[in-house]
């Protein structure tokens, strides 16, 4: 049986690596875990150990060649029955952890359980949970998918190909436009690739609904103007964001479904007992979402300081991994760049995200009088599987009330 060894994803969303040095030659016998090659990405030289004992049948790339993740590197004629089995098992467990198909044996005809066009019973389909999940996301019936994995197993690629064939939503190559020599193609890698995967998962997993609204914030503007010089003395630039976070926490306390997530596998709604607010932050490389932990237990002063520090660290890519995970609700402030309304995509698995726009002076009716007042626009996207429109609107109403009358907000604070 042949074991095909493919380039795994070695780094944070890496797209490719360079084959620096082959440590074996075709025809050579190798032990399991014997280093086969050294590859380089991000200045890390990484040994690739053999997944199986056997004889090297083919080296599929030259030294110095840059190969994409998932490309075949080596084909090994496995000799040890145990290794053959382990290689297959590794494929399953590692693919779960890294989304990389590491060791895929070409399908032996005798092992195929389906051929194109022939449907088989669902309970006979061989696929990992991750592949089944993807199939559900893309609306693909696994019983109609021809497998290409070992032992007739359906792979992620099989599902994606099937989805593309049936015109169901799936990542597709951009349509060919009139070609131009001025066209530039930028490899999707690093943080951009992580963002792409994250928003795709959110967009195709959670049915989004977005509500819009505006709050008149004359008193909030006055309060912020009064407090600003005090915090400025400490080097803290007080924005409206800490006030919004305080109001959000009060709203989440009243409407806990917006501080929840859906455990799809367990079919359970998880209500979070803490208030960790993700703050979407633009960085030169793309969007990062550092997390304000336990926002309910912090004063305005503490929130302002921490938001400033987190944003700064995020922009410099100095946030710790811990600071970038675990949010229960997210706020995105495109108002800082002049925007008013948006349709934010959920920071999955959060059930809701609040977009805030720029405060602008607008005509506003107050006590039957038309006045010019500062107005703060909101956009709230939520996961309709968990939250109904009524709940979401009531949450927004609570936010409007608290930010229009910050005295109420002060009463809500711990």
């Amino acid at each position, binding site marked *: 049986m042949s074991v095909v060894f493919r380039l*795994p*994803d*070695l*780094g*944070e969303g*890496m797209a490719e690596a360079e084959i*620096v*040095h082959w440590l074996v030659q075709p025809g050579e016998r190798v032990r399991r*875990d014997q*280093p086969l090659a050294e590859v*380089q*990405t*991000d*200045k*890390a*030289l*990484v*040994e*690739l*150990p053999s997944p199986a004992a056997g004889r090297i049948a083919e080296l599929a790339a030259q*030294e*110095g060649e840059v190969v994409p993740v998932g490309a075949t590197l080596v084909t090994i004629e496995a000799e040890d029955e145990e290794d053959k089995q382990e290689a297959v098992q*590794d494929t399953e*467990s*590692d693919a779960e*952890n*890294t989304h*990389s198909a*590491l060791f895929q044996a070409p399908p032996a005809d005798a092992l195929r359980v389906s051929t194109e066009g022939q449907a088989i019973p669902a309970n006979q389909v061989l696929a990992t949970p991750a592949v089944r999940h993807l199939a559900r996301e893309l609306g693909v019936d696994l019983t109609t998918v021809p497998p290409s994995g070992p032992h007739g197993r359906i792979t992620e690629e099989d599902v994606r190909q099937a989805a593309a064939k049936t015109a169901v939503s799936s990542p597709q190559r951009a349509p060919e436009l009139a070609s131009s020599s001025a066209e530039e193609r930028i490899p999707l890698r*690093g943080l951009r690739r992580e963002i792409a995967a994250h928003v795709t998962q959110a967009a195709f997993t959670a049915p989004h609904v977005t509500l819009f609204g505006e709050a008149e914030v004359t008193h909030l503007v006055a309060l912020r103007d009064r407090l600003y010089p005090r915090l400025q003395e400490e080097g803290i630039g007080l924005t409206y964001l800490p006030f919004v976070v305080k109001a959000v926490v009060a709203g989440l306390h009243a409407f806990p479904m917006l501080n929840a997530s859906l455990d799809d596998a367990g079919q359970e709604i998880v209500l979070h007992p803490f208030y960790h607010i993700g703050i979407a932050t633009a960085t030169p490389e793309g969007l990062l979402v550092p997390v304000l932990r336990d926002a309910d237990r912090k004063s305005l002063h503490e929130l302002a300081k921490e938001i400033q520090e987190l944003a700064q660290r995020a*922009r*410099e*890519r*100095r946030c*710790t*991994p*811990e600071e970038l995970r675990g949010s229960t609700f997210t706020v995105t402030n495109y108002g800082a760049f002049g925007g008013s309304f948006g349709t934010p995509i959920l920071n999955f698995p959060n059930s809701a995200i609040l977009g805030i726009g720029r405060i602008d002076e607008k005509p506003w009716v107050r006590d039957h009088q038309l006045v010019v007042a500062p107005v703060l626009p909101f956009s709230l996207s939520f996961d309709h599987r968990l939250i109904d429109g009524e709940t979401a609107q009531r949450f927004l109403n609570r936010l409007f009330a608290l930010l229009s009358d910050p005295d109420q907000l002060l009463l809500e604070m711990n």
Partner: protein
Amino acid sequence: MQIVVYNDIEQRSPQAQLNLDEQLLQAAAKGDVGPTWRLWQDGQALVVTRKETHLPHFHSASVSLHRQGWPVVVRRSGGSTLPHTAEMLQLSLILPRGLIVVERIAQLYAWLAAPLVGLLETYGIQVGFGEVKGAFCDGSYNLVASGHKIAGTAQRWIGGLAGVPSRQGAVLAHATLFVKGQMRAPTQAVNTFYALAGGQPHYEERAVTTMETMLQKEVQMEEVRQKLLSILERGDLVDAYGNL
């Protein structure tokens, strides 16, 4: 997790220093050495990777550079040619993956950078990761201050794949911090090496900086070393990056 801090003050040649990192890495893979920080310095040398040894005129270039006071030594981590001088501080982190879960290249760079970021902050120098056009041994995980490379980093993984937590092994991450002096001569030496060896000499002095240049005042090597040592021994920065 206790990490041994090895304040290595022994004088060795640059090649012997690199060999020691390699020996510690191999020992860690066998389980003979636990997690270790090693702080060290060496003399003037051009430290190339094995990729550079394949350049068409590598050997003659090495002889020529040696005559000019820049012996060429080979390291086994990634990247490309990096100059070492006595005005730079070297920091190595060796981790056996059997004891510590290290899955990602970025994660290891974050751990390596944490004490250096802390050190530079005590001098008021803010740094982040990033590429710097024109810098030698450039990469996404340079430490960058005001757009200039102030420290270079690289890694080597043995006995187990990055990206695959189920396979153990050991990892080495090392950094070179540019502390004192000017970067003109080191940059010129790298360009000369590539010109003679048949590579592309295109590095610019202004892409790289030192602590002294950033601070516009003299910095004492021993003081910097002691500050970094105390940060390593305190250990809290590493905890913040992953609870080692």
